[in-house]
């Protein structure tokens, strides 16, 4: 099952040129700087903007092709805007039921009750939107988009208008969405942190065209993309919880290159997790250190090296068969005689468990 999009607009200073196919499962982040066409793409998929001569196919259903254009209210979508945009003349309960009442088929996969529970908004149902905080309103907006069990959920920077505290309040709900529901999510964002935490697949946009498309783990570790040359450059690794060490309060997570030790996680043994390693937290030694406080040390091979300005170098290491980025000084590279293909040890000072 895929989402296929083809569209082209050329209006002087504004041009979009998209032609891609992405898997319609999990969370696909549409990531890029402001003005790169992220929101235009989402609005086109929802049918809110009619772009002539575009093509759109969701899981084998054609929504737009040539002259054919399916009106937005006939598309099975859930859309969450940057602002909650709740209907101010209706109560929270009525807001949630607005879409349900207009469903053609009554077979809703997700019940109203479970959605209310998932987003923890049960205590708000009788209130009016203007009596809610910004974070509560956005949770209601997400629930409202979900209760109709749409074929696809479109989120247009749902956290951008919220401050840091409210972002952290809502992110866990978004993370639990993908675990609980089997609805493909397109998530527009310009926040690297949100992408790292939520997305499985990444569609990288730059100046109105697709720069790259692929799994988040792979794209984050590619040296030819801007992503790898940020001060917050990070690598994401999928791992499985294999054991909890209650004595030292650590969890052991296995991946193809070995085993990570991280702070004891509440995740059950056998569950999948995503590890985040910042490039600046990875250092290189030529021999395996035994007298060090660092727990996570892996044999690695240098795959590629790229300069960051005059002082620093980003290395792409391969651990097992997993790429990991490291950011070190040019002096260290020189002193250690590092070169492409060399076998080294990667010492990872800190690892964060994202989910």
């Amino acid at each position, binding site marked *: 099952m895929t989402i296929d999009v083809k569209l082209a607009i050329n209006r002087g200073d504004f041009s979009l040129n998209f032609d891609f196919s992405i898997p319609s499962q999990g969370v696909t982040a549409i990531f890029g700087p402001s003005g790169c066409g992220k929101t235009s793409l989402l609005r086109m998929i*929802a049918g809110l903007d009619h772009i002539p001569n575009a093509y759109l196919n969701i899981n084998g259903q054609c929504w737009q092709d040539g002259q054919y254009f399916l009106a*937005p*209210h006939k598309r099975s979508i*859930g859309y969450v*805007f940057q602002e909650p945009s709740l209907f*101010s*003349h209706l109560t929270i309960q009525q807001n949630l039921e607005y*879409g349900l009442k207009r469903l*053609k088929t009554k077979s809703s996969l997700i019940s109203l009750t479970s959605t209310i529970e998932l987003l923890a908004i049960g205590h708000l149902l009788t209130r009016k939107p203007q009596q809610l905080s910004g974070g509560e309103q956005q949770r209601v907006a997400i629930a409202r*988009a979900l209760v109709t069990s749409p074929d696809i959920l479109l989120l247009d920077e749902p956290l951008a208008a919220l401050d840091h505290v409210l972002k952290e309040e809502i992110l866990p709900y978004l993370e639990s969405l993908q675990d609980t529901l089997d609805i493909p999510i397109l998530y527009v964002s310009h926040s690297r942190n949100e992408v790292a935490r939520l997305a499985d697949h990444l569609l990288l946009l730059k100046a109105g065209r697709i720069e790259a498309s692929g799994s988040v783990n792979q794209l984050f570790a590619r040296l030819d993309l801007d992503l790898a040359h940020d001060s917050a450059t990070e690598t994401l690794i999928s791992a499985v919880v294999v054991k909890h060490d209650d004595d030292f309060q650590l969890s052991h997570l296995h991946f193809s290159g070995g085993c990570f030790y991280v702070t004891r996680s509440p995740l059950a043994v056998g569950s999948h997790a995503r590890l985040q390693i910042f490039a600046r937290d990875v250092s290189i030694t030529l021999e395996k250190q035994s007298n060090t406080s660092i727990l996570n040390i892996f044999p690695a091979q240098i795959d590629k090296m790229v300069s960051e300005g005059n002082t620093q170098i980003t290395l792409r290491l391969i651990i097992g068969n997993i790429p990991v980025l490291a950011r070190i000084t040019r002096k260290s590279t020189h002193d250690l005689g590092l070169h492409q293909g060399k076998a080294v040890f990667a010492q990872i000072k800190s690892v964060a468990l994202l989910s």
Partner: protein
Amino acid sequence: MFTADDFSALLITLKLATISTLILLLLGTPLAWWLAHSRWRFKFLIEAVIALPLVLPPTVIGFYLLITLGPNGPIGGMMSYLGLQPLAFTFSGLVIGSVFYSMPFVIQPLQNAFSTIGQRPLEVAATLGASPMDRFFSIALPLARPGFLTATVLGFAHTLGEFGVVLMIGGNIPSNTQVLSIAIYDHVEAMEYTQAHWISGALLIFSFLLLISVYALNRRFSVQYK
């Protein structure tokens, strides 16, 4: 206190204001909706035409309507040809005159209300499966309620106070086309100041109460919708 003619003038005035306001709401709502959402580049022309009654002397509007609707005018002539009674000097003619005269007072508040709502709530409703008609009735109308209240009361109150247009097009036929504002004029002409006082005072208090209720209700709505 009030003469029989005064009473019939009162009834005619209320009937005229009610019918004109209803017609204006029916015709004005789609027009205001179009004005609020259209991106047509010559839209300002229509807006200027609608605002004309705000600046024109009512006698000018009345004069042109009289010319158009009278037996020798294009519409009046056609109606005579079809064997119908020309509209000038009839109650129907008064209604047509009032509709033109009070048009900006109904359309402008509606247009403002629809513009204030903006596209977003309608887009949200569309993504939740509401058809364009459904979106209008379930979202736009309730959200524009303060605008409708203002439009209704202003349209009604403004028609109550109409003088020039009515005089030109309706003549001054007691118990047929004589409205309150003209009855007052007649009383003053005839030096019947007591009668003029009663009617003027009643109109003043009635209009004032109407406007108080609009502003009070709108304040309540705007607090609620903030």
